[in-house]
């Protein structure tokens, strides 16, 4: 029989071993799934994990990994800081949308002026938009003790409606013959966020993601505020004795994660996406939750987790096109990753005891 026994202290080995084991288990279970679909499991796994980095078209796909990973990392770092403190912002998708809408509005308001200040102003607008949207659940929580999980999640749907309104109404391209969608940022130099080196896939959002990872690491390891965040999550009572103000921490963590999500939104809309459209958001805000946990809520871990997640997207697309895999199978595969991660995570805090007979 099996029994779970709580460890006196979390296992350091499993804390870092979990993601690796989860990835391996996902490959095995995914392989079985692909085999059941009549595909060669080894070919599929190789297409997903190997080809984008080392295959024939890696010169193009490596850059695409950065395009895909950038927003995931940026959002996940903000979320992780909150999660560390026990503050559950589930609505990053909404903050991402509002950041994009406000940032894009700033840029389009200046159209067709060419000035080097437009893009920085858009970035500020994006961060502000995300921050603003996150302040709603933050203030409702600190003032009325509402549940930030529900409020932030519900606000995603409100944000989607605002996005649809923006694309068909106040941001619609006046020269677009009535079609929804804003002006294209790629043809408006001052407001566009192109690749920094052609073909590299790296735009300012990717740079921001990497810089943020380093700053967040320093914050957590070297700064008083980081200590307070960790303490609030691990021992809320002790934190209070230590002089941590819970309300201020909620406002700080929600605001920061919102601002980072908003930044991801403005970099995406001015870069890879190119315009505000009705379905501009592609779920980065939700996938970032997986990335945050996959990266152990650690900023450096999140960078790797973001790249890995991007790999399953880019590789999954390759597998879908070249091997005729249904898109649903790729989504199941990504879901497995979180499933196994959470499953194996039990081993960090518990150990398994085998014993015979009844107890």
């Amino acid at each position, binding site marked *: 029989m099996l029994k779970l026994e709580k460890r006196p202290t979390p296992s350091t080995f499993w804390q870092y071993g979990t993601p690796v084991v989860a990835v391996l288990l996902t490959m095995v279970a995914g392989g079985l799934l692909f085999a059941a679909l009549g595909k060669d499991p080894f070919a599929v796994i190789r297409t997903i994990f190997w080809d984008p980095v080392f295959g024939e078209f890696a010169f193009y796909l490596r850059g695409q990994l950065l395009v895909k990973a950038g927003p995931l990392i940026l959002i996940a770092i903000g979320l992780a800081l909150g999660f560390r403190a026990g503050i559950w912002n589930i609505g990053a998708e909404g903050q991402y949308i509002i950041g994009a809408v406000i940032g894009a509005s700033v840029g389009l308001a200046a159209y067709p002026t060419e000035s080097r200040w437009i893009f920085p102003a858009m970035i500020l607008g994006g961060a502000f938009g995300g921050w603003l949207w996150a302040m709603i659940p933050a203030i409702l929580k600190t003032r009325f003790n509402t549940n930030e999980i529900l409020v932030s999640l519900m606000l995603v749907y409100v944000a989607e409606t605002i996005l649809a309104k923006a694309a068909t109404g106040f941001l619609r391209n006046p020269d677009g013959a009535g079609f929804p969608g804003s002006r294209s940022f790629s043809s408006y130099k001052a407001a566009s966020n192109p690749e920094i080196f052609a073909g590299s896939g790296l735009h300012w959002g990717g740079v921001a993601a990497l810089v943020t990872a380093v700053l967040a690491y320093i914050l957590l390891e070297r700064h008083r505020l980081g200590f307070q965040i960790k303490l609030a999550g691990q021992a809320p009572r002790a934190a209070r004795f230590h002089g941590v103000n819970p309300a201020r921490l909620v406002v700080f963590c929600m605001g920061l994660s919102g601002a980072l999500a908003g930044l991801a939104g403005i970099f995406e809309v001015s870069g890879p996406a190119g315009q505000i459209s009705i379905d501009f958001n592609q779920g980065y805000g939700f996938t970032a939750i997986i990335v945050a946990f996959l990266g152990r809520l650690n900023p450096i871990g999140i960078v790797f987790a973001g790249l890995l997640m991007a790999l399953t997207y880019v590789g999954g697309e390759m597998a879908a096109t*070249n091997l005729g895999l249904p898109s649903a199978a790729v989504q199941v595969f990504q879901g497995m990753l979180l499933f196994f991660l959470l499953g194996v995570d039990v081993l960090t805090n518990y150990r398994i005891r085998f014993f015979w007979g009844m107890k």
Partner: protein
Amino acid sequence: MNRRTLLASAALGLGLTLAGGAQAAGMDHVKACFVYVGPIGDGGYTYQHDQGRLALEKALGDKVETAYQESVPEGADAERVLTQMALSGCNIIFTTSFGYMDATNNVAAKFPNVMFEHATGYKREHPNVSTYNARFYEGRTVQGTIAGMVTKSNKIGYIGSFPIPEVIMGINAYYLAAKKVNPDVELSVIWAYTWFDPAKEADAAKAMIEQGVDVVAQHTDSTAPLAEAAKTGGKVIGFGQASDMAAYKPTPRVTSTIDNWGPYYIKRVQALLDGTYEQVDSWEGIASGEVEIGEITDALPPDVKAAAEKVRDEIASGALHSFTGPINKQDGSVWLTEGQTAPDGDLLSMNFYVEGIKGDIPQ
């Protein structure tokens, strides 16, 4: 020059301007690739495109090889999928949703020797980009005729997806046809802001039925509105959208507008094989078979069925145009004068309701 350096040089901005005419020599074998916005299992829009792909395989046999990808989000992801397809040797790529418009043109710029065919869009920025669409509004005229004749409450409904010209022209055609046979008819429109979301579509249908609407047309792709209509025990009817939706025959689905892309796909790939391929802006309708009117069932009274068939046949023969003047805009200003038919340009950029429709297009 291999594909790799081709892309690299294009990306460096050296830009190769080889025209699409490079295909004039013809080919022995064509790899045709398809990008779908939804899952093939949607039973509607994407399903019909995939039926077109299968028809292409069947018609051209081993001269053609096909590949496809489902559920590709519009935007940056589409651009990557298109680039992957072009890199992996597709000769012609069909991008089957409006939202792929910019991605299609951007990638086409980098691969001048790959032909791109974009469905329902209007941008052809490079010689290797063609656009194709079908005159679905012709099907709406048939549906509107039925709706106007059978409604008892004089309230008919339309589930809109997004307020884009494609959908607005469908709403206008539906209303004009209904009003022609029943001047008292009133139209209500609900915007679902989705192409495919069974729950949202069912809610929209439910809301209309509760308001007394007894004919529900849909511009969304799932069968959920028909399922709602079926619950009323024959009081409410609807129409198959994009695919036949035959499971709901003979009622509530009394007829359907079927997207039949096969003939177009075969024609284009054949042209590529023959070396006669040229950039086009194709917009065909009932006459050439791209828009197919599904069986009009006997659940309708015989006179209604006969009237609907007459409209269908007159559109096919060219005797009837869905938008024939006099037609005023909603604000009362004149759009078409007596006997004038709508120019395609007006339809493709349509952003107004015709006179008589209540409510506003979301702005």
